[in-house]
């Protein structure tokens, strides 16, 4: 019975090469770690100091996590979910970045998105743009 054998072998070793997409997922995973641990520390130790900034830190961590999962997934709908996550992320980094520059009083402590990601060599503002370009090219 060659047919089931072949099928089970294929399911055990699916096509796993993602190419540059794999690098994108890796960078996003680093930012899940960076934003997530930053938010966890801030909320656990000094939440009352700057609740807005810390809630935004946590929100950015959640967005990074969702983007990582969507980019890593090959299920139907994952592409659209990834576009949604990265678009939200781009808006987030632009809005928070601008607010943190214009009204620094509202952001006494930094988030990953403050100053357009200044504390992270501006990767937070470049990442969603590169990601969206990659997703657009991948679809066509």
């Amino acid at each position, binding site marked *: 019975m060659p047919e089931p054998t072949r099928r089970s072998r294929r399911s055990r070793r699916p096509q796993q*090469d993602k190419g540059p997409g*794999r690098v994108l997922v890796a960078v996003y995973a*680093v930012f899940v770690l960076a934003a997530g*641990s930053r938010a966890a*520390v801030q909320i656990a*130790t000094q939440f009352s100091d700057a609740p807005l900034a810390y809630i935004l830190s946590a929100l950015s961590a959640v967005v990074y996590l969702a983007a990582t999962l969507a980019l890593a997934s090959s299920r139907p709908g994952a592409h659209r979910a990834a576009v949604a996550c990265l678009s939200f992320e781009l808006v987030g980094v632009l809005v928070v970045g601008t607010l943190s520059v214009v009204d620094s009083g509202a952001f006494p402590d930094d988030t990953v998105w403050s100053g357009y990601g200044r504390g992270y060599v501006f990767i937070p503002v470049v990442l969603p743009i590169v990601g969206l370009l990659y997703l657009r090219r991948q679809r066509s």
Partner: protein
Amino acid sequence: MIGILEVVLVAGALGLAVAALVWAALDRPVRLGHLVAAAAVELVLLVQGVIAVGRVVAGTRPASTATFVAYAVGSLVVLPLGVLWALEERTRWSSVVLAIAAVTVAVIVLRMGSVWNGHA
């Protein structure tokens, strides 16, 4: 934090990153030697983590213990996850993934050093 370990870790991690990027430029997937180097860096990270925990228990406090612990835990998970993610790929991009993990470890080690020395 622990001067010599910090230097060894940053040099080792950045060396691994450069080697992996050269490998990627040559269009090659991750090779065994790079995995051995990653394991060596991970081992030194573990040693650093154990010494740091010992010092914190003994009473030395970094500028922010919570931040330091977060970095210490983070430093240990990056390379294993990076290697697992890289090994599923058989193209040059696996080498790029390993390089990113190595650069991340170098940055975390430097941040751990500055948090330990009093800069939150």
